[in-house]
């Protein structure tokens, strides 16, 4: 875990270092930047040091002082990460719940009525949802449900969770829930033909019990796996949707920082992403034994 973290942060640091352009000069805009100020700023952000010295200093700050550095407008990067992750986590949770509930319901509905109207409708609907670019969906949803109908706030986080996150969450989930619905449907249809289902029907179990207890439970294994990967995907932030709905989340902050080559922010956010994945993997490894009785650690 430690080598992976070190390797990744170093790699990102090198990449940021290699970005073209002088961030300090860009900050000044069209106005002249006196040499003394230029030098003071470069010194403040340690931009004149060699790459490895800069990296070492950064690592030292993070490890021993919990200091992730400072943005160009004097904000602590640690605080920025904390703030933006709160926003992104809420958006991710909303999107994930939508994906789970709506996607699986549609899949079950279609799967149980294979070849019928429901099946065709879900197939058609999800095809459209997957095909529409998310920004089109985002702007349309904002215009129709936010502005015209006024059901949801148009932008911002002022109304808190869940109200501010419902509309963007649905937009983020829209394309993804198509995959969940299809996966559920296929898996369900396959299992409905399985021998044990026929046995269950033959021994006279009610249909509801056959579907819910026997078929659905087994059909959901691949779906749940997919949904698990989705969490990570959502947590990485959704740059476009966060931008359109003015949610200051991780993806959005990362994009802003990249534009002005704000090294500490870029490295900080990506490092945190890496940390989250590493932590999750660790938990997974430990959970193995609990989840699957066939696996035991000695």
């Amino acid at each position, binding site marked *: 875990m430690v080598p992976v973290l070190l390797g990744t942060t170093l790699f990102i640091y090198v990449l940021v270092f290699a970005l073209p352009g002088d961030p300090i000069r860009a900050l000044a805009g069209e106005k002249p930047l006196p040499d*003394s100020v230029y030098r003071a700023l470069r010194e403040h952000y340690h931009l004149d040091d060699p790459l490895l010295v800069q990296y070492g200093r950064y690592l030292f700050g993070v490890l021993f002082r919990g200091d992730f550095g400072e943005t160009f407008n004097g904000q602590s990067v640690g605080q920025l990460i904390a703030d933006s992750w709160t926003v992104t*986590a809420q958006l991710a949770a909303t999107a994930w719940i939508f994906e789970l509930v709506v996607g699986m319901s549609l899949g079950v509905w279609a799967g149980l009525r294979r070849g019928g109207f429901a099946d065709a409708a879900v197939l058609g609907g999800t095809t459209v949802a997957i095909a529409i670019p998310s920004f089109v969906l985002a702007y349309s949803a904002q215009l129709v449900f936010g502005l015209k109908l006024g059901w949801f706030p148009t932008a911002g986080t002022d109304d808190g969770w869940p109200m501010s996150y419902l509309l963007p969450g649905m937009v983020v989930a829209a394309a993804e829930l198509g995959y969940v619905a299809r996966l559920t449907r296929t898996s369900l249809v396959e299992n409905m033909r399985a021998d044990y289902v026929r046995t269950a029907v033959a021994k006279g179990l009610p249909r509801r019990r056959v579907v819910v207890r026997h078929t659905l439970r087994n059909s959901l294994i691949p779906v749940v796996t997919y949904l698990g990967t989705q969490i990570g995907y959502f947590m990485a932030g959704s740059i476009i949707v966060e931008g359109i709905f003015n949610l200051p989340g991780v993806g959005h902050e990362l994009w802003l920082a990249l534009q002005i080559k704000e090294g500490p922010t870029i490295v900080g956010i990506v490092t945190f992403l890496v940390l989250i994945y590493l932590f999750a*993997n660790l938990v997974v490894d430990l959970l193995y034994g609990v989840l699957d009785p066939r696996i035991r650690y000695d």
Partner: protein
Amino acid sequence: MTELARRTRWAAGLAALALTAAACSGDGDKDDGDAKAKTFTVANQEPGHLAPGAANDSYGIRVVNALFDRLTRLDKSGMVVNEDAESITSTDQKTWTIKVKPGRTFHNGEPVTAQSYVDAWNAAAYGPNAWDNNYYFGNIAGYDALNPEDPDGDGPQDAPKPKTDKMSGLKVLDRQTFTVKLTDPFSQFPLTLAFTGFAPMPKAATKDLKAFDQRPIGNGPFMISGSGWQHNKQITTQKFAGYRGSRPAHADGLVFKTYASRDAAYTDLLANRVDILETIPPAKVREARRLLGNRFVTTPGGTMDYLEFPLYDKRFQNRDLRYAISRSINRQAIVDAVFNGAFRPTGTIVAPIVPGYRPNACGLICMYDSRPAKKFFEKAGGFSGTLELWFSNADPSYEQWMTDVANQLKQNLGIKNIRFRKVPQADYLSNLTDHKATGPYRANWVMDYPSAENYLTPRCGPSNRQGYDGKECMALIRKGNRAKSIAESVRYYQRAETVLLKDLPVIPLWNWQEQGGYSKNIGNVNFDSYEAGGGVHYDQVTVK
């Protein structure tokens, strides 16, 4: 995907879900103020700084303007009037005596004195503080001592630390009076004092400048309140009860809401979720005019777009070539196509709102006509090689209008090889100042103070980006700077502009018009070209 990998991902999901749930709980995001307070909101973007000496983007200046009064302010016609100053006088335009009105206080109760101004200006001019408005103080005597030269340029030796942090040109005579000695006579000095960078600073701030930058203590109609500057979210202010100046706040408070883009802010404005948006995105102007009706306001701006030539490149040293290019650009057509007709084509360096502006000072040379353009082009001996047009990637409209310029040059002059150099924003300006441009480039100027001098010096002065020999033009500017009155100085500036336009190292293109709008919740919204940072007099706004 192996079974192992699947399980890994799945459990990762569970873990992440747990984190998510933790993050969700206990989040309210509601404002803590009581519901009856009459506050309004202004759409803003994340500022770089809030200390007056450091705030140099319009997002920061907008906030500083609400929080701070300066010695002078600009009236509706762009003329300078005293605000915090009782009098600003000089006999030689070089040494200025400034009397500060007694009885005015900062938000923390501290009185505004001559020392408050001197402290603020010294802090801004002190190089190691690295405040972005540092260069505005460059003409005060003693500035150099606070910004020592690096002895070997970019070499290994570090510049010496300044020996002093006080400019010798600033002297406090008594509690309310101080004198400013400039390096050269400068008749426009009172005008520059209206800029937010010249605001005062209380004693309480001098100990911790960083804290002051995050939570400034001002002397203006609004004061920072509550959580203050919540990065990427909002900046909350309330009416300053002890305000004694000429622009008391009508509303109880003002919140600057931070938007990632103007598009999101515009949508919120239509939904009446934000009250003022001072710059509506150009693409939405037509729609906004229709939807907002009389709540849509157009104000002439001080910002100009130019096409500058790299005169350090031999190919552009021929003036006839520059004339040819100027005459073959159809400015009105581009403004109509790219900016929905919202901008105003100009034949001047100086913006129309600046005193001393002469319509089309450039004459025929800045007017579109393909036949004389072609004649100039032939006289110049044509153009060989590839013509490279430079602009940054900061806004998509740059490429749009450059495409039009390229097409017009192809059509009217027959220049076949035209290439775009679209440079990352972070890289663009350093390319220009380092004289690395290999062709005409987009240039833009945002007005600091309404004086022709503010537009001309950067283009004629010794450090101009075009590599232009502006001695003749600069001599006239200096005469204007020494003039006894603003009216007299204007005449010299006009002559300087004429010289610059005759040599044409820079082609005027168009003047920006600001399109703003406001919600149904507020009234008495007065847009003003001379109001710092945006355009609305926040103090006058009333909440319904």
